[in-house]
């Protein structure tokens, strides 16, 4: 198939063995690439019951047919492993040059298994593999690691690295590249468990696309639309624009989801940040949108200031969720998460859980002055450092809110705000019912990126009184659309630049691969990919009880009214299983797997 190499590189760190293995065209045809391909490789290489931090857990990096083609925003790499945070599929995406570097090696994907005997850098140079000791890199932030390796190996190398959090096995540690993160579900901890501090990749061979001229014209047209009103919010203000609006409509998670309103929302809102702290704007490789806004603290009184890249999710998690209303504190905390190499959502949410424990007098087994209080920005910073180093209370918080609550007990699971162990994103589901369903059934846990069902809740497309089947249909469609974009590795911020996303994306796919693709083909691939990930979870021990929401959002308080209840959520989940063609217990019937063309791909 054009646009692909049709093979992946498998490296076992224990044996130091290397093999090139084929990826059949049927896999690209059925699962597209990106997250679909990474999930397929994970299913094939991760045995049921694998220890997520054991050598048997594969760490997968996958590109897509679109990577390196010049299609705007398509330079993304998919990362997959069994998550040490959730015990189910951990899949994430990270933008920029690393994806192109991998694709240029002559392989579509890299699968790393085993465990290095000593800290190691894996070097992949045009398909040739070598190893470099990493002892001198331990303790360094990912950005410093990349600088060091690129200075030593050559600027053509792109680097994926972990920070201290990954080295120490923080369960929500991330993998960083080019200033971006494969952030959620703890792939950095998996990489650290393999003794792998970094992977440096360089290559020179991109596969040909089927119709270069046609593709160039279509890509130019899409790039033009990507600069229009459909992406203005991201370009002009960035995702931080969500914060003040979410506060206004009462869906801004505040003080560990005790409220949907934050009194200091305007102080940390995207508009204020831009005017008072904004410095410049960047874009990922091959992106014509450029949504990445950078900010600087302004309280140094002439001394050093901190520069930070900030997204809405970081802002809410380290801001309103922890009750922190000083933008300087939030910016410092965001920069610290990047330096330590960890997911800011889970870090902030786990700290917010500890803050509520403190408020309620729950003994966390640490001196009280180590436990941050709501609103104490400097204490958040200290907690982040402790988490990264796994010292003091940080050792408990490095486990994430679910495990920490299990360890501490005392009823603290009642305010551990996670689904399947993954902490909730910055959308209060109490008023966003379709998203609530999407978060409950999500294969990687509570994730707004894999279930963008909030979009129908925050629109005029769905009646606020919509019944369960309508919400289930919308949630499944949102999930499948996310699977398509994540597998084409197109940025979701581009979605409104398409007049008809499946049809136009299918046309691009045809031009790249030479394989005639219809909108319906892509929609069926999206469904197949969602089922593939669900199948992985079932094999790893998922049960119906895992599809749920934290009890807090299912009952109202004076500060936080809710449209949800346990019976209503169960009704929506049952409807969702029905829409999906699954059994009443949420398992996938064999006949369904065959009907959607999945069984042939995973046998």
């Amino acid at each position, binding site marked *: 198939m054009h646009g692909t190499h049709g093979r992946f590189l498998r490296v076992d760190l224990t044996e130091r063995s290397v093999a090139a293995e084929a990826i059949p065209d049927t896999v690209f045809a059925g699962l597209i690439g990106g997250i679909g391909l990474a999930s397929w490789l994970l299913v094939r290489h991760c045995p049921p019951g694998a220890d997520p931090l054991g050598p048997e857990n594969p760490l997968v990096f996958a590109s897509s047919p679109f990577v390196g083609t010049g299609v705007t925003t398509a330079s993304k790499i998919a990362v997959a492993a069994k998550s040490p945070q959730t015990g189910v599929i951990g899949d994430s995406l990270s933008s920029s040059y690393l994806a192109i570097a991998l694709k240029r090696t002559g392989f579509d994907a890299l699968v790393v298994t085993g465990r290095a005997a000593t800290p190691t850098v894996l070097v992949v140079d045009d398909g040739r593999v070598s190893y470099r000791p990493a002892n001198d890199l331990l303790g360094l932030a990912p950005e410093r690691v990349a600088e060091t390796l690129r200075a030593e190996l050559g600027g053509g190398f792109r680097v994926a690295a972990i920070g201290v959090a990954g080295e120490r096995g923080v369960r929500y540690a991330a993998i960083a590249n080019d200033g971006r993160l494969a952030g959620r579900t703890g792939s950095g901890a998996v990489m650290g468990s393999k003794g792998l501090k970094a992977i440096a990749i360089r290559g020179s061979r991109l596969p040909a696309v089927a119709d270069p001229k046609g593709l160039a014209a279509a890509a130019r047209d899409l790039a033009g639309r990507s600069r229009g009103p*459909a992406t203005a919010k991201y370009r*002009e*203000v960035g995702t931080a624009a969500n914060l*003040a609006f979410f506060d*206004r409509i009462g869906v801004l998670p505040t003080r560990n989801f005790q409220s949907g309103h934050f009194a200091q929302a305007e102080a940390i809102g995207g*508009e204020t940040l831009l005017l008072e702290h904004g410095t410049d704007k960047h874009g990922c490789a091959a992106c014509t949108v450029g949504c990445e806004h950078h900010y600087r603290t302004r309280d140094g009184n002439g001394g050093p200031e901190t520069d930070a890249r900030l997204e809405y999710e970081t802002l809410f998690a380290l801001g309103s969720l922890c009750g922190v209303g000083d933008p300087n504190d939030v910016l410092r905390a965001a920069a610290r998460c990047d330096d330590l190499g960890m997911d800011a959502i889970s870090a902030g949410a786990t700290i917010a859980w500890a803050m509520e424990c403190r408020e309620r007098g729950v003994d966390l087994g640490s001196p009280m002055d180590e436990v941050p209080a709501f609103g104490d920005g400097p204490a958040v910073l200290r907690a982040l450092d402790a988490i990264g180093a796994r010292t003091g209370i940080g050792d408990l918080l490095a486990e994430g809110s679910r495990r920490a609550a299990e360890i501490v007990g005392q009823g603290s699971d009642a305010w551990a705000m996670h689904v399947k162990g993954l902490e909730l994103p910055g959308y209060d589901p109490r008023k966003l019912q379709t998203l609530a369903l999407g978060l409950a059934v999500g294969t990687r846990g509570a994730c*707004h990126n894999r279930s963008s069902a909030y979009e129908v809740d925050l*629109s005029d497309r769905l009646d606020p009184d919509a019944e369960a089947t309508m919400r289930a249909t919308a949630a499944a469609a949102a999930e499948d659309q996310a699977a398509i974009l994540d597998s084409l590795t197109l940025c979701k911020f581009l979605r409104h630049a398409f007049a008809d996303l499946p049809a136009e994306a299918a046309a691009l796919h045809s031009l790249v691969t030479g394989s005639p693709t219809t909108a319906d083909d892509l929609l069926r691939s999206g469904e197949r990919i969602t089922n593939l990930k669900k199948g992985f979870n079932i094999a790893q021990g998922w049960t119906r009880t895992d599809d749920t929401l934290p009890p807090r959002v299912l009952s109202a308080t004076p500060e936080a009214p809710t449209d949800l209840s346990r019976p209503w959520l169960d009704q929506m989940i049952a409807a969702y299983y029905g829409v999906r063609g699954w059994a009443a217990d949420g398992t996938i019937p064999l006949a369904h797997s065959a009907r959607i063309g999945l069984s042939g791909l995973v046998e």
Partner: protein
Amino acid sequence: MTFSVAAPPAVAVELFGVPRLLAAQRHVVVAGRTLGEVAGALAGACPALLGPVLDPGTGWLVDGYIFVAGERFSRDPGRVLGEGASVLLVSSVAGG
């Protein structure tokens, strides 16, 4: 015979994101009975919105923006507003 025509009610419009930055204000009070009238009045009150947010030809919202009125998202210019209504103007590109 004389007629008395009631003046359109005052509507408080709260701006978020790009509209707020362009207008350089968080709130605007305009007169209007419907969302269409509010959009038209906004164009007069905040000329900077014309083009990027409001269509200069129709006076209505360009694609990419939406009102929230009474907890409902709406791009219906005929949507009638009650007395003392408060309206939010925001990007229709939800979330991040």
